[in-house]
């Protein structure tokens, strides 16, 4: 089975974010493999271990994203494709078009991706990609089973579980709970540096910068307002309840 995993390098979720010239400042920020993509890589490796096959990771981004690629390779992915081209770093539309062009050059049975990236959280790229490739997709899955060409996936649905079926080739996106991603081993890191990593540009993919230019432009990027100090209500219970109701009505206006 040929499995493709789309990954993204994101800020460390524990990183302190600061802005500079209307963009997130990258200096001193730790970058990680998007946690949802880690579930996707882990699931791909589990399927490979059970059914055999090849796992290829694909990503778009500047030179620094190679670290995320190495992490996926150290976990056990077989090879990687890195599209490194300024003109490819657009919006969700751009990334989906670029990934589709790269993936069309490969043969695949299954495509995995994270449900969303923890940085912008838009959750669009993978489903757009399925549309462009004209294949079915099942999003935010928490369980995946593949028998022959039959795919059965589970996903959370309003506190219950929805079961979706599809046939290969299919694209699925990973939700938290799908699995427990493995830690790479030191020998995995050693092996990762010897695995094939193909670097591509838009020209290699037969794409022009104009054709994949962004459709959406951010107008403003700002940090959430600083959280004010809390207030501890005083007095006996009746007094505190009264005060709380008053606050909820008048100050926060939620009642």
């Amino acid at each position, binding site marked *: 089975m040929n499995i493709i995993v789309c990954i993204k390098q994101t800020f460390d979720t524990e990183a302190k974010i600061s802005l500079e010239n209307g963009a997130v400042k990258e200096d001193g920020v730790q970058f990680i493999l998007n946690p949802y993509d880690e579930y996707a890589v882990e699931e791909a490796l589990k399927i490979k271990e059970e059914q055999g096959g090849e796992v290829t990771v694909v990503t778009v981004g500047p030179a620094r994203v190679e670290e995320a690629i190495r992490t996926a390779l150290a976990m056990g992915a077989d090879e990687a494709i890195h599209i490194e081209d300024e003109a490819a770093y657009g919006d969700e539309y751009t990334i989906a078009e670029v990934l589709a062009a790269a993936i069309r050059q490969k043969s695949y049975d299954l495509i995995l991706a994270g449900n969303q990236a923890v940085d912008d959280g838009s959750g669009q790229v993978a489903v757009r990609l399925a549309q462009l490739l004209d294949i079915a997709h099942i999003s935010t899955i928490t369980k995946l089973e593949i028998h022959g060409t039959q795919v059965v996936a589970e996903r959370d649905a309003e506190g219950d579980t929805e079961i979706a079926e599809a046939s290969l080739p299919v694209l699925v996106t990973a939700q938290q709970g799908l699995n427990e991603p493995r*830690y790479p*081993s030191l020998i995995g890191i050693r092996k990762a*540096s010897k695995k094939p990593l193909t670097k591509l540009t838009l020209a290699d993919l037969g794409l022009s910068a104009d054709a994949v230019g962004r459709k959406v432009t951010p107008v403003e990027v700002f940090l959430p307002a600083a959280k004010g100090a809390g207030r501890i209500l005083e007095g006996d219970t009746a007094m505190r309840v009264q005060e709380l109701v008053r606050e909820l009505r008048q100050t926060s206006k939620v009642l």
Partner: protein
Amino acid sequence: MELRLSSEQEAMRKLVRDFAGRVIAPQAQSIDETDAFPRSIVKQMGELGLLGLPIPEEYGGVGADYVSYMLAIEEISYASAALGVILAVHTSVGTLPIYHFGTPEQRELYVPKLATGEWIGAFALTEPNAGSDAQSIQTRAVRDGDFYRLTGNKVFITNGGEADVYTVFAVTQPGMGAHGMSAFIVPKETKGFHVGKKERKMGLNGSSTAELIFDEAWVPVENRLGAEGEGFKIAMSQLDGGRIGIAAQALGIARAAFDAGKQYVAQRRQFGRPLADFQSIQITLADLAMQIEAAKLLTYRAATLRARNAPCTMEASMAKLFSTDTAMHVTTEAVQLFGGYGYTKDYPVERYMRDAKVTQIYEGTNQIQRIVIAKSLANKE
């Protein structure tokens, strides 16, 4: 000149740092308090590949360079200096001499099991009357047919009683000094070999330091490491690497103490403001940060030389001496920054201070390092 880690070295460091923070750090205090050998953590370190970092892949290791190995010791020691020394001794002197000087059969038999952590290694040179003066060991090895009979006592043996394989030094030709010494691979179950008293130490609790007793221990001739008389050469061959390892251990301890102190002074308020707002505290932090940086540069530089097999005896001694003195100073100052709380076991800085002390003593005392540096200078003239 640029000192920059390769992406592979960076990835390995990150992996070890994550592991140390996730698995070791939460248990570091209890390892110190119970003084129990952290076997389950050592096992996990083996699974990760940590116990065979500089050993080639075909012998079960990772095949990493010496710099990656040094970074691993630093990161592990940041969380627990006890695990740092278990790792450093197991690898630098417990495994590498067998890998470098072993016959193909010895390599095949011992190295893969050591590199994967199935077995733990130890190195037995020091005796009650032969510490820095290693040439005057008295343990005897007398040839008897296809065996040697080893008799004598070793002390302060790290991983003693926990290790599966010991590289033991004994005199085969008395009166020949350094040239009369030979090395032997002694498995723990060897007849006539016993583990004696386990030392109760000031620090590095959880790592085992024990006496070894050889009472006519029967060691087959095929377990001799190298030729007869090559023992001293084998013992000395790993010194540079061993010293860089201890420099890295001390660096890890110093960094841990500094980070704890820096964090504490940002939170602790006196006279209505955080301690970090006082200039005297800021100056202390600036001095400590500078010394740690200098220790780091000396250590990384020595490791880089070692990684490309360049001569590094003087650089290794300088790194060991400076980094361990820095660790002692930084940990003492960290306790001072914590004030009365620093003297209690509720905070880790008193542990760092106790752990730091031995780094100035073992793997060649800092007095010996000065002699080594001075000799290297004289040789260069």
